[in-house]
């Protein structure tokens, strides 16, 4: 019996969002009477950090503390339209809509403050701490809260903004088929190390090293969290998860989480991540977001690592011990493909 070490590489260029139908995202922003701002979205935060990132984007754009911004998501009955949380589009599409809505709300806020301070709105700036002041004369200022009160109880004005981000449809050139399917791409490269047991076919991932280019990391801790959790899911897809273990036969489908397998906490893999920040031109503050590619490149990298370790090329997922063992038998034994 031998444990064979293997190493596999994969890289990915991943499109952000879709082109079809313009991929619209909308945001509505308004201030409450006490000068807090509410961002209404129908985009969904299912744990990836949409609320945190759009909150940061709105605060930065309006020029108020992040604590003074609230994000309300995911009621398509009452919120503005959004295509949804998929296609790695959240940060980019929704963030852009939030910037536009926030910019309009900021403009109104500055106009209301200008009326109170009896100056030109173009001469005003925010300090990001809840105050609006005359440029070069910080003592001539008004708080955002006072501005909101004045706007809503004296001036009869709302501090609100509407934003939509829509991709211009790109028709395919009938001659060449050429079109622009997406507006920007994120990129990653990843190396996975495995150990393969040549008597049982068991594969254990032992390390992941990755480099992700996600534009600006708007919230570095959230990016790291996405990349670590996403890689776990990639390992899970590569080696464990299936609803049809005997595909194309439909027999013996798992009926619970004991038989629908996913790696457990005893299988935590050291994952070293390098985040490369290259702000994208059309992205909100340059942030494209990690999205689905957190998981995707892990799968081919694991498949390549298994091949490197024992010479078995699995092209059906998941790469189960049975497939590996059958491959080893078919090859007449483990055939390591070089130094791991």
């Amino acid at each position, binding site marked *: 019996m031998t444990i064979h070490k293997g190493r596999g590489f994969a890289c990915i260029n991943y499109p952000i969002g879709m082109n079809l139908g313009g991929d619209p995202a909308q945001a509505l922003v308004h201030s409450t009477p006490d000068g807090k701002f509410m961002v209404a979205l129908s985009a969904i935060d*299912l*744990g*990836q*950090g949409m609320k945190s990132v759009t909150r940061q984007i709105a605060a930065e754009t309006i020029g108020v503390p992040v604590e003074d911004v609230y994000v309300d998501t995911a009621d398509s009955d009452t919120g503005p339209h959004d295509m949804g949380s998929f296609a790695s589009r959240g940060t980019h599409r929704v963030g852009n809509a939030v910037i536009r809505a926030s910019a309009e709300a900021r403009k109104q806020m500055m106009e209301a403050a200008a009326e109170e301070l009896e100056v030109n709105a173009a001469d005003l700036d925010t300090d990001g701490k809840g105050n609006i002041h005359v440029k070069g004369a910080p003592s001539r200022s008004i708080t955002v809260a006072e501005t909101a009160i004045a706007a809503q109880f004296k001036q009869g004005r709302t501090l609100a903004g509407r934003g939509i981000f829509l991709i211009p449809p790109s028709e395919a050139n009938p001659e060449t088929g050429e079109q622009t399917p997406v507006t920007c791409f994120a990129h990653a490269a990843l190396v996975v190390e495995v150990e393969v047991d040549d008597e049982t076919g068991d594969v254990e991932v032992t390390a992941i090293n990755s480099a992700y280019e996600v534009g600006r990391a708007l919230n570095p*801790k*959230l990016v*790291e*969290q996405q990349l*670590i*959790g996403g*890689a*776990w*899911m990639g390992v899970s897809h590569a080696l464990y998860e299936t609803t049809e273990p005997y595909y194309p036969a439909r027999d013996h489908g798992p009926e*619970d*989480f*004991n038989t629908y397998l*996913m790696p*457990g*906490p*005893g299988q*935590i*893999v050291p*994952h070293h991540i390098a985040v490369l920040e290259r702000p994208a031109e059309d992205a909100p503050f340059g942030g494209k977001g990690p999205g689905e590619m957190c998981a995707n490149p892990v799968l081919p990298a694991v498949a390549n690592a298994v091949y490197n370790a024992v010479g078995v090329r699995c092209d059906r997922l998941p790469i189960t011990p049975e497939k590996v063992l059958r491959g080893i038998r078919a090859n007449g034994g483990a055939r390591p493909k070089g130094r791991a």
Partner: protein
Amino acid sequence: MPKTPLTFTLNDGEVAVFVDPGASLIDVLRRGVGDLTPKQGCAQGTCGACTVLIDGKPHLSCLTLAETVEGRRIDTTAGLAGGPNLHPLQKAFMEGFSAQCGFCTSGMLMASKALLDRTPNPTRDEVIEAISGNLCRCTGYEPIVDAILSAAQQGGAR
């Protein structure tokens, strides 16, 4: 169908309810009492999201027949914080980015509280064993294990 009267202690408060025959503890907690902190993930005992403490020990509330807890003490995540002060485990989970969708968090907190109450300074392997019945789909487990160890270092057994 006649209901059964049931009394038990829930996070220092006394609870008296009538339960349907065959009702699980999680049904009684969520629908009968209104404590929504235990989550029903699978109702099969395979995910751990419904973990509560019964007399200090972790149990799956989806597989606990409600009437078997007569006179016993139930602890749920709703009772972890003391007023505005989060439990050290809750604080460590928050600071460690240990939740994404949050569905497993309540069960993770109760499973790890059960560990720290008995083993204030656990090893990493003991932490892993303590949460081994709790599935997490988002984090890859590492931030959760780290948070529990960090809470332990800060006197998490409260």
